[in-house]
């Protein structure tokens, strides 16, 4: 099975690049290949001007990696975690001491530097993991789901930190399945699904696409009937059952034209509609349009394949 197939992207120096895709799309595999942790079966890549196959050490000394799971040494102190990584990167002693001190302060870990990392909260552990990837001042930083599983405040702090780092010149390659993170942070974005790139461009260009369609969400106890009826309706472009609560998500060109027809059809069937939400499409909706799958965890109950009009038959 191919986890990542013919992924072809280019990230410019100093860019904050987003890499989005549903779970299992091949994001982590791609990052692991770029960091020299996994050998691609064919093809290669260049990171910071160096080929990942020919000069893995040059690549490794110029990049930092923060994986999805904070892989810090929980049984070591925060300070030693940083020191050890600096040693592994052969940062000279004096610079090492200085760098460790600065990072501990910058990431708000200075007062707990002698505590074991296992005693840290998730947010602190993640901050330590990011700091560990920065001990050697990498040119490019790979962040894999870096705010995953964190509370709102911690995630916000980390996003601010990422913006800072990028402003100071670090190229950032970020994977996430939080669309708002992409909107807030990224200059450009690539969408990966089933191991292939389905879209790549600036966030603005993507956002422009959202103006092209609307979303109607219907809450109903009579899902079966309504689903069948909506799928047969010619004004709906895509119909999904989002979860067991009975919310039906409908993609339409124009809500004003489609909504009366939908309600009319529902009334004719005798299907009860408890609530209706009409909204403009978001980046998340673009994502569903492109991949046929939602990015967000909480949407994983969506019955993929329930759509009728798939308008991207190129997969």
């Amino acid at each position, binding site marked *: 099975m191919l986890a990542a197939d013919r992924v072809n992207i280019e990230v410019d120096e100093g860019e904050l690049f987003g890499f989005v895709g549903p779970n299992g799309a091949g994001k982590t595999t791609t990052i692991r290949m770029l960091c020299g942790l996994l050998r691609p079966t064919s093809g290669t890549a260049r990171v910071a001007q160096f080929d990942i196959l020919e000069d893995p050490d040059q690549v490794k000394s110029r990049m*930092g990696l923060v994986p999805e799971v904070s*892989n810090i040494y929980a049984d070591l102190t925060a300070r030693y975690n940083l020191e*050890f*990584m600096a040693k592994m990167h052969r940062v000279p002693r004096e610079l090492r001491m200085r760098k460790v001190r600065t990072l501990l302060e910058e990431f708000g870990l200075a007062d707990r530097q002698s505590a074991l990392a296992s005693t840290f909260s998730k947010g602190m552990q993640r901050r330590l993991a990011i700091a560990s990837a920065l001990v050697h001042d990498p040119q490019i930083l790979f962040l894999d789901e870096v705010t995953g599983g964190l509370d709102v405040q911690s995630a916000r702090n980390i996003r601010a930190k990422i913006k800072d780092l990028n402003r100071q010149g670090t190229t950032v390659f970020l994977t996430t399945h939080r669309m708002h993170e992409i909107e807030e942070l990224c200059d450009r974005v690539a969408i990966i699904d089933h191991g292939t790139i389905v879209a790549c461009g600036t966030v603005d260009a993507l956002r422009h696409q959202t103006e092209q369609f609307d979303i109607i969400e219907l809450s109903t106890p009579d899902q079966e009937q309504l689903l069948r009826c909506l799928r047969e309706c010619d004004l709906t472009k895509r119909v999904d059952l989002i979860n067991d609560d009975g919310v039906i998500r409908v993609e339409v060109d124009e809500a004003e034209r489609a909504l009366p027809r939908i309600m009319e059809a529902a009334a004719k069937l005798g299907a009860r509609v408890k609530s209706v939400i009409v909204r403009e499409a978001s980046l998340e909706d673009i994502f569903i349009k492109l991949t046929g799958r939602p990015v967000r965890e909480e949407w994983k109950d969506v019955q993929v394949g329930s759509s009728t009009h798939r308008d991207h038959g190129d997969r």
Partner: protein
Amino acid sequence: MTSLRVKTALQAAVWVAEKEFRQFFGGLPAARLIVTLLVPLLLLMVFSFRVGGVAPQHVPIAVVDLDRSSYSSDLMTVLTTDDRFVITRALSRAEAENMIRRGESSAAILVPQDFSKNIERHQQASLELVLDDSNPFFAKSVYDLIDDSVRTAANNLSPQPITAKLSFMYGVGFGFVDFIVPGIVAMTAMFGTTFQALSFVWERTLGTLDRIRSTPVGAGSIILGKIIAGSLIGIAQAIVVLTFSHFVFGAVVRNVGVLILIVFLVAFIFTGIGVTVSALVDEPRAAMMVNQMINWPMVLLSGVFYPVEALPDALRPIASLLPLTYAIEALRAVVIKGLSFGASEVLIDVGVLLLYAAATLALGSRLLFRILSR
């Protein structure tokens, strides 16, 4: 250029080892130390009381007859016809002792010059008995047998009881703790180091191995660092066990330098085995299980608690394949007999251990290297 490369690789290995030490002694150092040392100390306690021996057969015995009288030849006949013994004649005490040292005899019986004279004068006649106590487990049984046989023979020779003056070849005596200490030291080193090497599996699962791999440090340095740490931790544990054995249980400890070198080899071998296991198995619980499957037969078959000679014939060839067998044999020779590298028996064992060390290390790092650099 190359020497600089080697230097940076070695430096990285030392740093990895330092990290291993911090992990070992950090966190809950007291709990970890107690856990790793509890079993060996408990074993020492249990075995400091002697357990029942086995009934040996065809025990090789050297006999020196300095008396050359009809009395002494009668005694010889009794001993020779007793099929529990295989009697060899020696010309002098020195020759008999050499036979014991070479492991050709388990005991020597000396009939002194005045043996017949004393019997004829109705005075107390006595024999001298020298026991090979490098294996106290065995020595006690041999002593009981000889005692029994000589007593029977003497009853026919003299109305007066004949006494046997007992002396021990190595001054260890019947203390079982002396016998068990080398085994427990080797066993502790084995358990300590395999456990340490298995931390690779955890590191793979937790992703911390990826963390090191995302730096320019090579696989060789990572493996070497683990081995340095594993070996030193194994030696440290062995030293603690030795200290306790000597000062608390009164065990004989000789040639500490040679002993530590052998323990180092044991640590090295079992780090290699641990590394091999962690390269083949990538799930911690499975790795632990495989490890148990290797370590326990090793403990039971290589003579930690009883001499390998006491094993059934079918199992002895297996024992002779296990590195721990050679380690324990060498340690006993060093600690109890006070032998050093000058002795061929130590030299052979150490040679075998060196071969094992080279083989396990080569295999382990080769397999792991493949994983680390893929």
